[in-house]
């Protein structure tokens, strides 16, 4: 491969990005070296197996990727704002929507979700860590290096441009030669393996690591949502892995799974990728449902309404979501019977989802609603998701879908459920648990600016797109009014939509500002229970100590901490002398990071079809696995003195239970 092909050239924006990436890298390296922070970085972060720190790293990565995906979105909207625009060339536009979709789902939503998993679940179930701390670290680094591999396609080799699900034969060698498509495959493959491991990890964590007195039926709903989401991950991520392997076999070894020639069948890809792809959206939305349940109960000062049907509906969603995938290709010729069955399955999944909305509403009913930042996002979610869900049911009606499919109606629908359902939920979760993990609250005023800009921006951006769908505008076109003499009247609505995108972008800037501002000025959480919470994570100090719980909590029912506080107020608490025991904790380890670097090397090698490098990377992976297998000294005990010291330093906290009115 020639040098001029290795580096992406040709566009001033790309050169600009090259320069800024180089500058930022130099700045980071300088900072780390000058302040002698390399050791700190290695000891405290890269080798950590602490679920809270891993959660923080997921959160930071997710926000970075939200930025990158958002910039892509803005570029697309600029291009479409006016007809016949030449801001972006066709291929550049294609690359941008491909990376936008891929990044937002796989490298933004997934890590954001895993951030919440990691930060919240062990604290909520009274555990000191996840079931497999080592594996947890492997998962993170696989995700992170997979995401980096995908992202460097921007500057080396060229970005993928066949759409976020890369339908063959377009994504096959014949139509998309070169490393761009391979970046897509390997970036997703590597991080997808990490996601699968996280799924296993959290299923076992929730089943086996709960504090012994917590029964499953008393478990907080967020943890239930994580369980159902993780079960869905286990059910579908293997399919993604294999489907990507198949495309790799086609591209790298000359196979014919999905080619047009030699009997390959592109429809098979569409079938398999949506077997993963549809449950995937439920995977990301279920934890958001969990967040809503926690936030609504806390800020209505009321028990969650209909706990059992909430649990049942989540499990139902995670299983039924497995039977809806064909609604993504009703128009592909699978026949009327297939379409009818999958249309009805798709509609059925709306039932448990709708039930959840009712239950949230009736949790607020006869409660006392405090409109805090997390609650604001939940309240924005309800109407947004209702409409998004309704358009989803409209799309499920197969023959109507023939008219919506691949049009801007579809685009508007899935942004409405993915932003209104998923992103709002994750942001609510971030605001809600931020004090727990960092020890301070995020500034309300800046947050409100961010909130309203997001809200207005969202409706301004996406409502016109429903209309554009009815006007016959199809997705993924980089320009319009340009050919065959058609002017379909799409221009004004597109212009408005672009304004909305900018508003959301400004909203995001406010949120970044809010975080930076609050690091210094945010309200400190001294009680550990800043929201007057109901579940166990609020019973420990903020930020949580490394071992989470000095003594494993006793749970007598749902909302354990809430009732414990009530008991405390009534004075029914028998004070006993505290007697700590040494706590068993896993050791830090560099192996996950090193192994993931080898994966990165392998992925990079296969991307450029340098087999020697790919195989060398895989051998490295095998060697690190082998090395780990021989590590026996993988844990340590925190001595009692140290626990006493830590707990003493925090003795001053103690929550005051504030009853309503």
């Amino acid at each position, binding site marked *: 491969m020639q040098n001029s092909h290795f580096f992406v050239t040709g566009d001033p924006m790309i050169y600009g990005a090259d320069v800024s990436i180089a500058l930022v890298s130099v700045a980071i390296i300088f900072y780390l070296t000058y302040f002698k922070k390399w050791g700190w970085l290695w000891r405290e972060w890269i080798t950590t197996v602490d679920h809270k720190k891993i959660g923080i790293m997921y959160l930071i990565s997710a926000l970075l990727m939200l930025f990158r995906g958002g910039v892509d979105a803005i570029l697309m909207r600029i291009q479409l704002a*006016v007809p016949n625009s030449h801001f972006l060339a066709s291929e550049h536009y294609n690359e941008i929507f491909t990376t936008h979709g891929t990044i937002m789902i796989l490298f933004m939503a997934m890590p954001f979700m895993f951030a919440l998993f990691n930060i919240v679940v062990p604290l909520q179930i009274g555990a000191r860590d996840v079931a497999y701390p080592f594996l947890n670290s492997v998962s993170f680094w696989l995700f992170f290096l997979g995401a980096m591999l995908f992202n460097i396609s921007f500057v080396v080799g060229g970005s993928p441009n066949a759409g976020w699900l890369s339908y063959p034969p377009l994504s096959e060698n014949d139509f998309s030669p070169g490393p761009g498509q391979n970046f897509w495959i390997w970036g997703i493959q590597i991080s997808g393996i990490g996601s699968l491991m996280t799924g296993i990890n959290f299923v076992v964590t929730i089943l086996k690591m709960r504090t012994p007195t917590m029964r499953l039926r008393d478990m907080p709903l967020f943890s239930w949502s994580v369980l159902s989401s993780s079960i869905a991950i286990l059910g579908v991520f293997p399919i993604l892995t294999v489907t990507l392997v198949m495309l790799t076999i086609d591209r790298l070894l000359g196979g014919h799974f999905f080619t047009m*020639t030699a009997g390959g069948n592109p429809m098979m890809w569409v079938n398999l990728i949506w077997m993963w792809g549809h449950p995937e959206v439920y995977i990301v939305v279920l934890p958001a449902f969990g967040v809503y349940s926690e936030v609504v109960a806390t800020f209505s*000062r009321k*028990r969650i309404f209909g706990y059992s049907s909430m649990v049942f509906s989540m499990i139902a969603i995670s299983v039924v979501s497995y039977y809806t995938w064909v609604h993504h290709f009703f128009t592909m010729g699978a026949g009327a019977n297939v379409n009818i069955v999958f249309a009805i399955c798709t509609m059925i999944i709306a039932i448990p989802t709708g039930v959840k909305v009712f239950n949230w509403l009736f949790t*607020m009913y006869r409660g*006392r609603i405090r409109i805090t930042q997390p609650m604001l996002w939940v309240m924005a979610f309800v109407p947004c998701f209702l409409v998004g869900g309704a358009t989803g049911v409209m799309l499920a009606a197969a023959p*109507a879908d023939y*008219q919506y499919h691949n*049009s801007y109606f579809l685009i508007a629908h899935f942004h409405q459920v993915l932003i209104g359902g998923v992103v709002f939920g994750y942001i609510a979760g971030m605001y809600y648990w931020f004090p727990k993990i960092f020890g301070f609250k995020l500034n309300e005023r800046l947050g409100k600016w961010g909130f309203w800009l997001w809200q207005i921006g969202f409706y301004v951006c996406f409502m016109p797109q429903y209309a554009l769908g009815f006007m016959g505008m199809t997705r993924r076109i980089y320009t319009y009014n340009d050919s065959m003499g058609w002017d379909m009247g799409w221009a*004004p609505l597109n212009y408005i939509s672009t304004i909305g995108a900018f508003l959301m972008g400004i909203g995001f800037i406010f949120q970044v500002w809010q975080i930076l501002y609050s690091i210094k000025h945010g309200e400190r959480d001294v009680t550990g229970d800043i929201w007057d919470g109901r579940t166990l994570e609020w019973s420990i100090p903020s930020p949580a100590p490394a071992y989470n719980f000095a003594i494993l909590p006793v749970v007598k029912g749902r909302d354990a901490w809430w009732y414990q506080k009530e008991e405390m107020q009534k004075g029914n608490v028998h004070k006993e002398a505290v007697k700590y025991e040494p706590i068993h904790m896993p050791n830090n380890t560099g192996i996950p990071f090193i192994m993931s670097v080898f994966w990165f090397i392998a992925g990079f090698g296969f991307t450029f079809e340098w087999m020697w490098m790919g195989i060398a990377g895989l051998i490295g992976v095998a060697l690190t696995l082998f090395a780990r297998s021989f590590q026996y000294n993988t844990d340590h005990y925190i001595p009692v003195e140290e626990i006493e010291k830590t707990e003493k330093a925090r003795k001053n906290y103690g929550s005051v239970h504030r009853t309503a009115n």
Partner: protein
Amino acid sequence: MVYLNSTFYYHDSRNSIPLYFVKGDLTLRKWIQTAKLSFLALLGMALLSGCDKSNFIVLNPKGPVGQQELDLIIISVILCAIIILPVLGIFVYIVIRYRDKPGNKAPYQPEWADSKILEVIWWGIPIIIVAILGVYTAKTTINLTKPPVKDVKPIVVQVTSLDWKWMFTYPDKKIATVNYAEIPAGVPVQFILTSDAPMNSFWVPQLGGQEYTMPGMAMGLWLQADKIGEYFGSGANFTGKGFAHMQFRVKSVTQDDFNQWAAGIKKNSPALTDKGYKQLSKPGLEKELSFSSYPKGLYEDIVNKNGGTYYDHMSHMGDMGSQSSMSSMKMEDKK
């Protein structure tokens, strides 16, 4: 053709309608200027265009297929609204009534968290609504697999999506067109779709919903125009660089005009040869073209070479006329 910034590998130089890909001289600054100036004007226009019903082509069908789909859309909107609107109302009411503010006298029952009656209601209502919508959906789905009217003899139009153009072949008339199709009004048309390039989707919103064009598959789509007119069609599934330009025209004319048009093409247009098709199927754009004939079995060859031989659908690829395509439908029913 001047493809701009072929960063990498695309170095093909076909010569058709180069203008589309030539970078204009609009700089970003100029663009912002234009944007500023047109901001208010456009906002106004948008509001106006919102009232202009004719732009909403999906909601303004010109044939029975599109009409049935519109009916289903309306039914689904109504059924969804039955749930959405009351829920939104309840939501607003609850948020206002139960806000935590001093002196709020609304009841506060922090322990009230169960009600069998309420749960039955909101599991029940959605189930009923889904059942109703499910029935309509199933009915329409089955209806659309049949010709829209029974008493008129249908015609067959074979559609092949290419990079980045549409080819229409008429097995009855043995003529071919590119990027436009003419059909007789009031006659059911069975479009039989395939692709000799990455899959696309054939969509003429005012006649009815879309269907993918898949390499190696020949799939039928019934459409019909009730009146004469010209309808916008486009490719709806992304196929790469020239995808945005894959728009075409479907013109519905009276049966007589249709026959005349076909005869005119037969007489005046050049023939599509094997070589010509090879050239046509290369990546690139094309304007509207007409051909007086095409190589025998062209469509079948396209389907078969992309994997069609592995499926049993030779019988209704259309070359034996609409009659055989009808009989093959019956075969399908038996399956």
